[in-house]
């Protein structure tokens, strides 16, 4: 087994491709982040070509750090990802326990549940923001309108009318404002990724040691304490994996934000980079470097947490 040439040759294309894919664009981003580089400028046309003579040092970084959008985007990125993680894990645990028991039609329920995971992000965004959440034409608007008509009708009711008179008209929520559209994004991504968490937790629940549970039942442990003391520790690894995989995907969340929040101020880091890249490439690149740093911090943390268990 001394000959290591062959395994190396077999791995070379994959390693080389990924290395180029990672290094070439990233080093360009690094270079652009240190120069003045814009796409259009009538006053300083020399800035429209990338050149070392336009060196700006850390100027782009300073500019980005002072832009109030930047801190908002970081905050918003973290808020959106964290909310999705908490919601999917909590909902996923509950639903997995629910669906894990056998009941008539379990196979069909499984199929219904997993379906959202396969919906492409662009359709997810279009479907939720238009057909479901639109304050006038979507289901939300229609439901709120119907509810208001119902309450209006009840106001004329002989005895109970006074009670319904106390109710105000319900206003539909517009999910296209800055803050609410972040909620809309959280909602649609949670809808899409909860099935993923359910599927993984369910698989893990099936391998749980039943005899341990029976012993606990005989010892008089309540179902709740069994869940906390036996099931949750058993699920620790799947929870860590769900968090890791989702972080990989959601840190670069883009399509949903693009569709829901075009121009309304709701943004995460990838979206802010896209905005800068419309003209100021220097600033876009500096923001990109910050995004890489943020991703690395999270990646190191996550890989430490679950990386070892993946290798066993």
């Amino acid at each position, binding site marked *: 087994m001394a000959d290591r040439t*062959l*395994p*190396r040759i*077999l791995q070379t*294309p*994959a*390693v080389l*491709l990924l290395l180029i*894919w*990672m290094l070439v*664009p990233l080093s360009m*981003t690094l270079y652009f982040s240190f120069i003045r580089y814009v796409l259009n400028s009538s006053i300083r046309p020399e800035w429209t070509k990338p050149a070392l003579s336009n060196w700006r040092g850390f100027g782009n970084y300073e500019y980005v750090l002072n832009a109030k959008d930047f801190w908002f985007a970081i905050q918003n990125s973290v808020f959106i990802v964290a909310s999705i993680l908490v919601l999917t894990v909590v909902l996923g645990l509950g639903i997995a326990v*629910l*669906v894990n*028991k056998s*009941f008539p039609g379990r196979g069909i329920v499984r*199929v219904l*549940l*997993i*379906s*959202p995971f*396969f*919906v*492409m*992000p*662009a*359709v997810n965004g*279009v*479907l939720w923001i*238009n*057909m*479901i959440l639109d304050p006038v*034409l979507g289901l939300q608007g229609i439901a709120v309108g119907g509810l208001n008509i119902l309450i209006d009708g009840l106001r004329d009711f002989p005895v109970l009318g006074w009670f319904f008179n106390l109710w105000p008209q319900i206003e539909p929520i517009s999910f296209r404002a800055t803050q609410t559209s972040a909620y809309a994004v959280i909602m649609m991504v949670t*809808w899409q990724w*909860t*099935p993923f968490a359910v*599927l*993984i937790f369910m*698989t893990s629940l099936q*391998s749980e040691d039943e005899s341990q549970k029976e012993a606990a039942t005989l010892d008089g442990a309540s179902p709740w304490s069994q869940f906390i003391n036996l099931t949750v520790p058993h699920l620790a690894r*799947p929870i860590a994996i769900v968090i890791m995989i989702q972080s*990989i995907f959601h840190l*670069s969340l*883009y399509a949903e934000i693009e*569709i829901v929040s075009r121009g309304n101020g709701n943004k995460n*880091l990838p*979206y802010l*980079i896209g905005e800068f*890249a419309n003209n100021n*490439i220097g600033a876009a690149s500096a923001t*990109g*470097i910050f*995004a*890489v740093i943020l991703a*690395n911090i*999270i990646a190191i943390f996550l*890989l430490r947490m679950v*990386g070892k268990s*993946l*290798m066993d």
Partner: protein
Amino acid sequence: MATVAQQSKLSSILWPVAAWSIGLIFFFPIFWLVFTSLKTDQDAVNPEHLFFFTPTLDNYTNMTQNYDYWKFAMNSVITSGFATLFALIVGVPAAYAMAFDPSRHTKDILMWMLSTKMLPAAAVLYPMTFLTKNTLGIFDTHFLVILVLCLVNLPIVIWMLFTYFKEIPKEIIEAGKMDGVSTWGEIKDILIPLAWGGIASTALLTFIFCWNEAYWTVRLTTFNASTLSTLIEGNRAPEGLFFGRLSAVSTAAIAPIVVLGWFCQKQLVAGLTFGAVK
């Protein structure tokens, strides 16, 4: 004990009801999309026709005319298909070497590959546009989309294959070596038949990810090589105007993948968790 029996009787009714409700709630948005696609654009935004209307397939028959659907669908099939194929061609030998001839660097290489997946795509957006437009001149070509989709998914492909290959007893491969089978022969005649199920689910999952990818496919194409993601993102603008036809084209964009997903949901877990959850 009577209370326990009563409790279990109650829960034997409530439990399925709760589980079914959750399943239906999660499926409802997809149902609603399909349901809306059967309405005319007028009916789709008319509360009076919320549930009762004359269903029509016009939105589907007019899809080519309204959206040029087939062009984008063909692009999706071609790019996702070839990207999956190339990712497997590069990934199978690499995963084979890592699983059966690991060196002390194998772990690090695998971790490094996974970490490339964590690099935010947006950080390299402009260099990619610059390179492909100005330097290489491959912007908005099928070749570029295939290449990028292949690279984006390569780490996951290798990880998944590695997990499946690890399950195969080393002795079988060793026995092949003893018999003087060449490496290519080992891969073709021993590994691929044995790991066929794993390779197939890797391929399916990669195809799904490629089909749904919405960052690079949107940003690196304008028209020629645009996929269904671009088509849907590009048509989101007319708020409320064309709910009917927008629903139809969206349904057509997700239907193949959702149906494909139903068939491979069992393999999905092993694939997506890299075998760490059993």
